[in-house]
């Protein structure tokens, strides 16, 4: 994931969670930056301001956001930047706070501008000691602080796999490790393995694990497709559970050369834009018999034709797919506005064929403000639909492989779940007509009035 989006994702997530504890969004935003900086600081001490500046930061952290304190701070940084090349970005950073006008979105937008221009670590460098401690103190008072773009999603995925104690769980593109951490909170006795190709992601993942008291995650910096970590004498190691959120919108060529992937895709080699299918096959490859694989993908790849449809057909024939869940796109808001699905595969050891897939549409009922206030409720709702699909016939249904074939191999739940037609609600329609009459009359009166004044 691009660093800019990544950092913004972290900031938005943390800031949202810190807002109730800070006096203003700016307070929370700065605390969020501090959290991020906490870990990188130790390895990049040269990037951090010397002690003489801490007075300036104290002024900022105490939220004295009057123009005079910002001016003062800006001056300090400008002087320093002139003396020392390493600090050249700092005046920019302060300008951004000045321009941000206090509103959270603008503030983040401006930060985004700076991040897109400068190296991320350098941009993080305008943080300093006291703020880190304030932020960490705040963070410790929040029970549910889970950094990560997919924090709310992690709650859902953790509820959909059921690893027994002692299981090994692997996330091949772990990002901030939010999925692993959420799972560990449900089932404490697990061995967790996280891998990512971004050093920054892994750094924050470690901070995330630390903040959540999860210390037993083994992290590796490696490329999942080209040269994955966690191998044993027989090759890439297999795990009881594999959780994967493949990178969105990338092509295989961006990530790894296909020539570097010999024999990894026994079904059908993914091509070009089929990155998700490369990750799905890889995740299945890394899951041991009897294990579970959970993958999040965009809707687009479940309804596409051509090569991807053939890949879906091959996969369906393996009889491993047992669950497809559509989730509210706002679950990923504000990072991504896409519609997406969770796929669950069971690598069953049983010879009995399942020959059907449970399709669940949980996307609509929470497409409102409600769930954003209470993210865990989505997880509970999905769990309820999965365990008792028969109670929600318009939202959950077992679909046979034949029916999926007839629907041109589409794996989108919405295709198989049509809401029952409801009898027209006359009362509501009458009310709507009455209201619209009022609005139309007002618009007419307004028009006549303006016409009279003008002509």
């Amino acid at each position: 994931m691009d660093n800019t989006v990544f950092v913004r994702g972290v900031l938005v997530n943390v800031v949202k969670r810190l807002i109730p504890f800070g006096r203003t969004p700016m307070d929370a935003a700065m605390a969020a930056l501090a959290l991020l900086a906490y870990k990188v600081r130790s390895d990049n001490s040269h990037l951090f301001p010397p002690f003489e500046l801490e007075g300036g930061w104290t002024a900022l952290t105490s939220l004295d956001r009057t123009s005079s304190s910002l001016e003062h701070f800006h001056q300090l940084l400008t002087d320093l930047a002139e003396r020392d090349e390493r600090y050249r970005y700092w005046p920019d950073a302060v300008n951004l706070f000045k321009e941000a006008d206090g509103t959270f979105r603008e503030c983040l937008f401006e930060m985004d501008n700076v991040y897109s221009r400068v190296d991320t670590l350098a941009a993080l460098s305008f943080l300093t000691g006291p703020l880190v401690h304030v932020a960490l103190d705040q963070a410790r008072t929040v029970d549910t602080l889970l950094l990560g773009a997919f924090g709310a999603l992690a709650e859902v995925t953790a509820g959909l796999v059921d690893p027994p104690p002692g299981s090994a769980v692997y996330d091949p593109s772990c990002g901030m490790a939010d999925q692993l951490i959420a799972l560990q909170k449900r089932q404490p006795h697990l061995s967790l393995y996280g891998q990512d190709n971004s050093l920054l992601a892994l750094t924050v993942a470690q901070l995330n694990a630390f903040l959540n008291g999860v210390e037993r995650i083994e992290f590796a910096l490696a490329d999942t497709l080209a040269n994955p970590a966690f191998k044993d004498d027989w090759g890439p190691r297999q795990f009881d559970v594999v959780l994967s959120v493949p990178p969105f919108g990338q092509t295989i060529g961006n990530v790894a050369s296909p020539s570097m992937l010999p024999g990894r895709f026994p079904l059908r080699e993914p091509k070009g834009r089929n990155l998700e299918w490369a990750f799905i096959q890889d995740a299945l490859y890394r899951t041991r018999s009897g294990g579970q694989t959970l993958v999040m993908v965009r809707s687009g790849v479940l309804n596409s034709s051509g090569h991807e449809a053939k890949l879906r057909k091959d996969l369906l024939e393996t009889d491993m797919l047992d669950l497809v869940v559509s989730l509210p796109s706002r679950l990923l808001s504000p990072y991504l506005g896409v519609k997406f699905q969770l796929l669950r595969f069971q690598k069953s050891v049983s010879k009995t064929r399942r020959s059907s897939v449970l399709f669940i549409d949980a996307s609509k009922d929470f497409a409102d403000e409600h769930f954003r206030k209470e993210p865990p409720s989505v997880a509970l709702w999905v769990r309820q639909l999965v365990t008792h699909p028969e109670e929600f016939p318009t939202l959950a249904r077992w679909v046979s492989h034949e029916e999926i074939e007839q629907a041109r191999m589409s794996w989108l739940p919405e295709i198989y779940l049509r809401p029952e037609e409801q009898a027209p609600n006359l009362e509501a329609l009458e009310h709507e007509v009455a209201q619209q009459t009022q609005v139309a009359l007002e618009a007419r009166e307004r028009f006549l009035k303006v016409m009279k004044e003008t002509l």
Partner: protein
Amino acid sequence: MKLIKLGQEAEITRGAPKSRMEESGDAFEEVGLVQAANLSLLGIEGGLTFARVAHHKLRQYRLLRGDILISLLDVSNASLRVGLVQEADMERTLVAGANVAIVRLRSDALERDYLALYLRSNAAARQLYSARAGTAQSYLNIVALGDIDIPMPSREQQHQMAELHLSYERYALETQRLLGAERQLLQAQFEQQFGGMSG
């Protein structure tokens, strides 16, 4: 009355093909793609298709409040199809498709609502038709748009005219919505009375 060329007062660009906006970048945002059919003076209307635009490209393509959009297609009718990006449209990120021209005013000498109204008028269309090259394809080019002469009444007159016409647009829209709601009610009443008899 003083006339000015649209190209002098405004920057005129063309929306980009979806494929170009989506062509690269590993971090993207799903944004609304405004097409000719979505244009209205009261804002962007109807269902939008979506484009996945790389973050670093969004700054270049993102529509702003006050942008005037003109359909480059279907100019065989008397007047142009013109839309205004309104405040309410800013709730989502929007970009313009390839068949839409974006007119962004450089100064405040012209009231944007007035300008949009003028561009939609027959007078503007007549100027374009005389300038349009070829008859095989009714496709407007943005150079011809820049050559349109815009009459410049006083700011007060521009404002008055815009307010009058936009209040009429609002009145027409709300009346259409009322008719739609009444039709739905009628249909529902019919179904309730006779719907069960067909089976």
